[in-house]
């Protein structure tokens, strides 16, 4: 089960290139994102550009701020196959993934990270994905799949997902793009 709420940018206001003031599931920590429809055109990613196969109707962009940051705090399950007892026994792994990209040859980018935290907020684990460079996109407008997985450290009680969009150089539009943000937990059974 994907623990990230609205990781696909499908909920809440948006659809155009204008920044929005709120995004369901996310706290806007810096700047203001835009949730853009793949059908918008105007040089933004389209349904035909490289991106998630099941991409829904919209994706995240950095709006018009030089730096836009979205934060989502996730409480890890207390019980069950990926609950605290299993985490503390070292029998849970996480997988984080997202499609990250940008516009043509520009170096605007999106970075996705997840920090697993102890009950007091101290970081215990970290995975950082992206940003994807223009070279990695072969110089074309695209979203590229990025993924990492690792053990959930014993003592972890929460995860903070951070999605940062950065604009390079001049211009107005922050053309870091992201979609299909996902964080899942997996029980490993007896294997620590």
């Amino acid at each position, binding site marked *: 089960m994907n623990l990230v709420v609205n990781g696909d940018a499908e909920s809440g206001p948006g659809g155009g290139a204008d920044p929005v003031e709120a995004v369901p599931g996310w706290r806007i920590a810096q700047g203001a994102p835009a949730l853009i429809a793949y059908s918008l055109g105007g040089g933004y990613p389209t349904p035909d550009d490289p991106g998630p196969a099941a991409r829904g109707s919209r994706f995240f962009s950095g709006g018009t701020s030089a730096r836009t*940051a979205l934060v989502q705090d996730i409480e890890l399950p207390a019980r069950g196959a990926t609950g605290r007892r299993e985490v503390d026994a070292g029998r849970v792994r996480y997988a984080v993934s997202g499609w990250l990209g940008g516009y043509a040859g520009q170096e605007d980018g999106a970075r996705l990270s997840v920090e697993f*935290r102890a009950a007091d*907020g101290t970081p215990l684990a970290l995975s950082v994905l992206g940003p994807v460079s223009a070279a990695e996109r072969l110089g074309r407008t695209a979203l590229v799949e990025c993924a990492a997985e690792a053990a959930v450290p014993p003592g972890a009680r929460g995860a903070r997902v951070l999605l940062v969009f950065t604009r390079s150089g001049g211009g107005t539009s922050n053309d870091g793009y992201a979609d299909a943000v996902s964080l899942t937990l997996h029980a490993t059974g007896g294997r620590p």
Partner: protein
Amino acid sequence: MKLNRRDLLKAAAAAGALNVAWPLAVGLTPAEAREAAEALGADYDPAPFTLGVASGDPQPYSVLLWTRLAPEPLAAEQRLPETVEVRWTVAEDPRLRRVVAEGTTAASATLGHSVHIVVEGLRPGRHYWYGFRALGKTSRVGRTKTAPTGRIGKALFATANCQAFHDGYYAAHRAIARENLDFVIHLGDYIYEHGQVGGVPESHVRDHDGPEILTLGDYRKRHALYKGDRSLREAHAAHPWFLTWDDHEVVNDYSGTGGGAPFMKRRAAAYQAWYEHMPHRDSFGAMALPDPEIHRVRRWGELLELTVLDLRSYRSAQNLPDGTILGTDQKAWLKQGIDKAPDAWHVWANSIMLSQLRSPSGSGYMFTDQWDGFLAERREVLGHVHAGGLEDLVVLTGDWHSAFVDDIRVDFDRPDSPLVGTEFTAHSVTSGAYSADWNATNGPLMGRANPHLKYFEGNRYGYDVYEVTPERFSTHMRVIGDRRDPASPVSTLTTFHVDRGKPGSYEDPGTKGSPAQYRRD
């Protein structure tokens, strides 16, 4: 065969093969690299706690403890399980017998097997000792101290900055470890990102490990290389540290915003490696790694309010009409802090020079990477200090590799504008300064071009110690004799005082005759 360091260096230099002799050259395994590093003067604590122990961000009831498991310190990744259980102990005695707190935590490969533990429930103004155990091994014992509460008669602390590995040994840190301090502030340039400099041993005592660092693995190895100087580990183990950073933790003169995707990736790698190697508390902020939140306000009793600034993460490009060195949010936060400041000494940990520094010719500025590149914001902040009636402001600065004492004026171009504080810019630990000839020529010229400049000395290296009482703030400039000597003796070059309630500094009459390249008075 046991290698003799000096003979090895000489032979390698003669053969033009320092890049082979010096550790971490391409092709060496981490173990071989470490062996070579040790042959050339580096050393490490016993594995897996090779990089030592540290504490940071002391508060009255809490302190952060740090270590990192790195059996092979010069490897990008450790051959360890993905997570390793680490036991920690805090006690009232150096033998860790009177235990007051203990527990376990997990060291994750994703964070370089670093360990950060927030210890709560401590008592204010007390020394504590701490240690770690993992993989059947025990770390060295570190000492820390919690912040006091209420009225106190004195605080004693130090700053250190700019410690280029190749430019000298860390005799300054050796001395810091031996000072009876409450805490240490590092003002940045803890590591340098560039490649090898050559000239060992004629010009440099040692060298970097390879080319310019770019990746998380590169930055990890560079931090580990720097911690191969035992004096740095001693200073960390002796006192709690507060931390800020400057540019070289990432790359020279960078701005935290505006870079393209390759730079942002590099910045994230550098920031993560910095976090992995520092006693930094990052559990209270609104953001998350790999963007650690550096700026904070801390109290040392009712005597001192410490404001730690981050002048890199949120800055714009230099020399823009609406440029920012603080970023919008940090500036608002700083101004709010000024508005509600208590009656205390107000100390800003400021990585890069706040005061105006016109070039010796008087036209233009020496460097606009410092606050001189953000004129409108400086006027706004200092105007706010004045309008808010903030008194007893002392700004502590690094970066310049030379010592300056400046009057802080609201408008530096108007010598009659209000005097709102004093800035002490400290000598570097090792990073090279201008030549003695340059300093002798340009010290007086800088003094003439900058009427707020009171003192300049650029021929020495060391650190500053601050002795703070309710009545007086004294800055003792400690200098080492020789950067090439790991155990170089330390002396006090001079002392400046600031009296409570009286803006402006004055030099102690007992040291006023000490060498300097400029004195206004």
